[in-house]
């Protein structure tokens, strides 16, 4: 196995998995909240907020990365805030890669969840409230489970995007082997090398295998849920 991939590549794979998982899981609650807000909120500036959520999709990834650098770098206002308040540093850390991947996947996640929330029959939520459930419980016991298809789709999209994300990541946290070099960064570096194609394709194949596994898992979960195992 060690002959098949270099230790650095193994590290990149592990890092990519970590980064993608953390990016997806951490952005999930935020994504759900944002999806609720956009699906249900009726407030001034809703469309603007919606536009803001879509930004990482519209802007070239390097621009997103650059803006992240400005905001979340050690000298950036948000970066300084997080460092002082939570001791959380993004610059040149895997945490930054996760942040970049999370941001890039965010619009995909929000849209999918929002679609599901919007297709929920609100009369079911009303029924729950007549049974004594307050807003939070209605959300937890009815809205959320019924939005599960969208949540799953959102997780898959965001995770896949994170696995492939490269432009924003490398621009924000650069490409430090073992620290911020995710699979796509490694692949990119290989492609830039005159005889790196084979190695690049090998790594790509591994990304694909991982995402396929994630996909199969999500389909399996979706089917189990449709069969009704969810409380």
């Amino acid at each position, binding site marked *: 196995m060690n002959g098949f991939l270099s230790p650095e590549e193994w590290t990149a794979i592990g890092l990519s998995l970590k980064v993608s998982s953390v990016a997806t899981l951490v952005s999930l609650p935020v994504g759900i909240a944002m999806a609720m807000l956009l699906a249900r909120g009726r407030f001034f500036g809703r469309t603007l907020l919606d536009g803001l959520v879509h930004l990482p999709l519209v802007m070239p990834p390097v621009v997103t*990365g650059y803006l992240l650098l400005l905001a979340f770098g050690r*000298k950036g206002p948000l970066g300084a805030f997080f460092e002082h308040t939570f001791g959380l540093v993004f610059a*040149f850390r895997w945490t930054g890669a996760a942040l970049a991947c999370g941001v890039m996947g965010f619009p995909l996640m929000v849209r999918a969840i929002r679609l599901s929330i919007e297709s929920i029959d609100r009369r079911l939520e009303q029924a729950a409230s007549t049974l004594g459930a307050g807003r939070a419980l209605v959300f937890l016991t009815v809205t959320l489970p019924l939005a599960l298809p969208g949540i799953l789709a959102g997780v898959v999209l965001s995770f896949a995007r994170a696995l492939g994300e490269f432009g924003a990541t490398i*621009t924000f946290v650069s*490409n*430090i082997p073992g620290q911020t070099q995710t699979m796509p960064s490694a692949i*990119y*570096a*290989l492609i*830039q090398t005159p005889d790196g194609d084979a190695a690049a394709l090998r790594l790509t194949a591994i990304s694909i295998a991982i995402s396929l596994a994630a996909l199969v898992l999500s389909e399996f979960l979706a089917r189990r849920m449709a069969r009704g195992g969810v409380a």
Partner: protein
Amino acid sequence: ADVTVFAAASLKNALDGAAAVYKAKTGKELAISYASSSNLAKQIEAGAPADIFFSADLDWMDYLAKKDLIDPASRVTRLGNTLVLVAPKDSTATLTIAKDFPLAEALGADGKLAMGSIDSVPAGKYGKAALTALGVWDSVAPNVAQADNVRSALAFVAKGEAPFGIVYGTDAKAEPNVKVVGIFPETSHPSIVYPVARVAASTSPDAKAFLEWLNSAEARPSFEAQGFTWLEGRG
């Protein structure tokens, strides 16, 4: 356009200037596609409608040459550049580049050295070579932050995220938020050169003329204004 040029992204400012001069003189329109040299080389291999390839390093020009995709007679090693160590504008660091100079100490435990990708981006490759020759590579390697192009590396330094960076002299010159700490000795790295050649499959009748002009003194100021050195040698 009359001539399509595939040029390394780092040439943008200089080449845009030269193209304007050329157009003013001849009325000929240039279309210049800026991307990374690797991209461009592979596209030419795939039959891209390029007339001229202006690479940022020798490797990718050699890649095409090996496949007989460029006109060897037209190949010229056109420009040279310097490799410099930069720091944020307000940095107080003083370092003299020399054998075993204390770069690692200057970086500290957490400070990053921003460079282009050491495997793929030319500036990264040269930087690694220079640091190796100077005997400091091993000590700084864990702290190297590789960017996918020189501009990103420069941005890390300019925004103060990295205390030091290695970039081309041309880039350092154009960025007001960094200052040059030192210039790497030419002997410490392979010479930094930008070869240009006519693409073998080019059908543009104006390509040869443009390439000749590019090799003429009329083109020279546009490049020197951006900090490139004008090389005379063929090759």
